[in-house]
């Protein structure tokens, strides 16, 4: 019997080693697996390399992981934001390494890792500081830059619903990096609000098939709509 449902966040993350490369889903307020990041802080792994679009906002989630001094390096596209003060301080103090990656290269490098592709050529970044020292080729009449796949030991993603095989659905723009990060990591842990019986998720609507997911953890639903109202759509029948 396949049962990927973990009894707790702590159980799902217990074996995270120091020095791990950890992909963390989310973009802005959408799709950030805050409960899983909290679990990683509790678990205590250090010297982490974190892959996320941003470098933490405010004092919660990824920002709290940074503030706890657990992150050695961050790979992201957009670290500087109005509320990225924890990253800003660590960066200015020389206590965190930054690998800045154009957002499309970030997504495609992650996808490539998940698809078994070692690297790819892309016009993005050609002739810029971010392509310095990288191999280039003239392909299809355009200069292109070689980018390598980006693998991870662990991916933490936020999904909406899942089942014990690890099939996942997402909600609106909270999907963002979740599906590609799930493919790229040796171990993917997804938080879900609802665990459904096998067969209850519409197979036509499964976004991440369970093959890409190792553990799912049910977390208490947090409101993403204004006024603290839970998500407007009802759970599907059979839930």
């Amino acid at each position, binding site marked *: 019997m396949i049962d990927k449902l973990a009894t707790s966040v702590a159980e799902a993350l217990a074996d995270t080693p120091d020095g791990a490369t950890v992909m963390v889903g989310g973009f*802005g307020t959408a799709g950030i697996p805050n409960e899983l990041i909290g679990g990683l802080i509790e678990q205590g792994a250090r010297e982490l390399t974190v892959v996320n679009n941003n470098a933490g906002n405010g004092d919660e989630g990824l920002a709290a992981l940074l503030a706890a001094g657990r992150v050695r390096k961050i790979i992201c596209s957009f670290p500087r934001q109005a509320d990225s003060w924890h990253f800003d301080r660590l960066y200015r103090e020389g206590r965190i390494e930054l690998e800045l990656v154009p957002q*499309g290269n970030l997504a495609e490098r992650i996808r490539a890792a998940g698809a078994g592709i070692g690297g790819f050529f892309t016009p*993005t970044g*050609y002739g810029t500081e971010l392509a310095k020292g990288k191999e280039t080729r003239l392909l299809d009449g355009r200069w292109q830059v070689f980018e390598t796949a980006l693998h991870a030991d662990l991916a933490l993603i936020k999904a909406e619903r899942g089942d014990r095989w690890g099939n996942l659905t997402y909600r609106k723009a909270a999907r963002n990096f979740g599906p590609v990060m799930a493919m790229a990591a040796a171990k993917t842990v997804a938080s879900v609000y609802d665990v459904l019986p096998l067969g209850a998720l519409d197979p036509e609507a499964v976004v991440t098939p369970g093959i890409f997911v190792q553990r799912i953890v049910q977390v208490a639903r947090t409101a993403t709509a*204004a006024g603290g109202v839970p998500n407007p759509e009802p759970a599907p029948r059979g839930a």
Partner: protein
Amino acid sequence: MAYPKRSKDEIARRVASDIHDGAVVNLGIGMPTLVANHLGGDREVVLHSENGILGMGPSPRAGEEDYDLINAGKQPVTLLPGGAFFHHADSFAMMRGGHLDICVLGAFQVSATGDLANWHTGEPGAIPAVGGAMDLAVGARQTWVMMELLTKQGASKLVRQCSYPLTAIGCVKRIYGDLATLECTPAGLRLVDLVDGLDHESFEALLGLPVARAAAAAKGRA
């Protein structure tokens, strides 16, 4: 010489007037988002957001915000009927694969031949952030820039060669500014339209760059 500058809203309206029915468009963070306010009428324009949305609609009414439904600037938005959600690699495949008709971006500097600098001032101590700018600039079929043409100190943001770090080489096709609309060509800048009351020679003097006269077709239209 007295000449009225176009306001940000007027520039946005000017950009919108060139967006064709059926176009798929990505509006960058900042001034370009104003273009969405001028896309009404009979046209159907599909807005793309890098974080996985096609068919993005206007801001929700107060109290109806959904923080799982935000734009690239992390502001709450809505979804129009026909809209769709997808993951980040698909979203950037839409840009990088040449499926977007137009992207409208802000800029620090644009060179006469269309080099774009809009991600980093390169100042010591500045934390760089690139986001999707480099992917959009090279991926969309047409990259348009929307900006005021002079800095607050009066220096031209249109330059022979960008002094800020580049986003992409030769990618900008059109510049919509407060004084004029221009095209970047391999031979340099070409005028499309100029605000009333500013003559061609004075405009060139403000930019410190030669500008080819408006093409006959554009003149006829004006």
